[in-house]
């Protein structure tokens, strides 16, 4: 069974068709990079998996989106429960104006009441996983807004990991960061792959080549090419893909 699968997925926002019959499947513990020019539908595709598009006026979907073989757009699925299994990291760091500790504990406090000792354990574990623990261990009570941009983004990753999702969605997680912070996040993605399935949207093709196992190229709402990353960049099949990865458009 695939971790992720879409079957002939089309998406409309009102009259505008954002995705056109996209079918794709991804194995467990793989990293999938979504690339393509702005407005190609890659962010829409990413946000299908935690149903963040549901809030957009005029959103309509055809086809099936499956996680662990389960159609997540079936009527009996509660999107709130779904989002607890699917973590998301956004383009810009979005720390809440609380302490570092409370930021990471946020998702845990939403669910069934855990004893504080257990919350503390999971906060520490998540911060270690996000490679932030050593930098903040003495300042857990300090405001998260005091952290640097790169630290804030790793905090957001820790926050997403704390609720123990099995799937992690990242929407251009390094586009607002400097090169050193970017390198740290990429390193992190490498380590997280052992435990999580990751889907990452990126504008940076070197990044896609560095961090991903599979790459999908979107253009004008269509999935143009999908394959193993090492084949994708060394031996692209489709002329549009070649033009895009050689930098002739986009």
């Amino acid at each position: 069974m695939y971790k992720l699968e879409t079957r002939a997925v089309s998406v409309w926002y009102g009259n505008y068709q954002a995705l056109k019959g996209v079918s794709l499947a991804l194995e467990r513990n793989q990293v999938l990079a979504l690339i393509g020019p702005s407005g190609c539908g890659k962010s829409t595709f990413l946000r299908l998996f935690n149903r963040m598009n549901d809030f957009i006026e005029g959103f309509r979907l055809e086809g099936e989106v499956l996680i662990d073989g389960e159609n997540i757009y079936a009527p009996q699925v509660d999107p709130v429960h779904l989002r607890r299994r699917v973590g998301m990291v956004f383009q810009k760091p979005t720390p809440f104006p609380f302490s570092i500790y409370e930021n990471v504990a946020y998702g845990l406090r939403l669910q069934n009441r855990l004893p504080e000792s257990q919350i503390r354990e999971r906060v520490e574990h998540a911060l270690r996983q996000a490679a932030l623990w050593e930098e903040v261990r003495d300042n857990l009570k300090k405001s998260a807004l005091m952290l640097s941009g790169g630290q804030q983004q790793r905090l957001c990753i820790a926050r997403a990991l704390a609720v123990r999702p099995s799937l992690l969605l990242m929407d251009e997680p390094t586009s607002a960061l400097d090169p050193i912070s970017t390198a740290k996040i990429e390193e992190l993605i490498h380590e997280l792959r052992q435990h999580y399935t990751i889907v990452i949207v990126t504008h940076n093709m070197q990044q896609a080549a560095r961090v991903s196992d599979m790459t999908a190229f979107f253009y004008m709402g269509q999935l143009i090419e999908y394959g193993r990353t090492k084949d994708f960049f060394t031996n692209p099949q489709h002329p549009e893909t070649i033009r895009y990865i050689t930098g002739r458009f986009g």
Partner: protein
Amino acid sequence: MRYKAVTSVPKRWVEGLATALITLISWVALGALGGVVAFLLYKGAGVLSWAFFTDLPRRGMQSGGIGPALVGSIYVTLVAIGVGSLVATAAGAYMSEFATSRRIVRFLEFLINTLAGIPSVVYGLFGLALFVVALGLGASILAGGLTLALLSLPLLVRNAQEAFGAVPKALKEASIGLGASELQTFFRITLPIALPRILTGLALATGRVLGETAPILFTAAVYYLPTYPKGLLEPTMLLPYHLYVLVTSGVDIRQTYPMAFGTALTLLGLTLAFTGLAAYLRFRLKRHYRV
């Protein structure tokens, strides 16, 4: 010379004159404001004392204090802001966060803007018809407070709506993405972050409600009562109306003048205090959240 003077001499002269004029006019306006305060201080500071704030009016309101009017005003304002803040926060939250149709929100905004333009005496009449007569509350602290709540609603609702709207969408999305329901996101993220701004609006509205005269004329105020108000369903003396009485309808107006200025000064002080509180909250808000 590479950079020639683009502005000719007469033009610069006109500009200088215009700047001087604008400066002068603003100083005159500010001076007038300062003049009001200075005048009230000069005329009214003499009667201010602890007894003035706590004593009952005596000898045809020519001596004694304004105790019942001060307490009455505080009660009525508490009712107004208490009820108004709850209703307005809920309405603002609906309009900013929960309404699913833009058209409904625009229609509500139109209604609220219209309400904001209605003269306050009309609110008074409406309060008389609805709260005093139809609901049988009589002229009372409750009826006056509810009327003032109604009057302050447009201001408070728009303020709450803007406060919720100013909370970055990215934070709300992040919360939803972590598995929070919309209601959890509202109570854990949106409301706490919007709160300082909402409180600022409340403080401004409090200052305004304290001084409103017309809406309480027929709904709460009495000319003279020799006691402190005892319950929400009792009528009461109130500062703005008491001031009106002291200036226009005392037994011997010349004798009540100092009392009138003392009352005016008290009102001004209370209003300034709440406006100052609003300014302080805004300052704190800027320091803590850069939203």
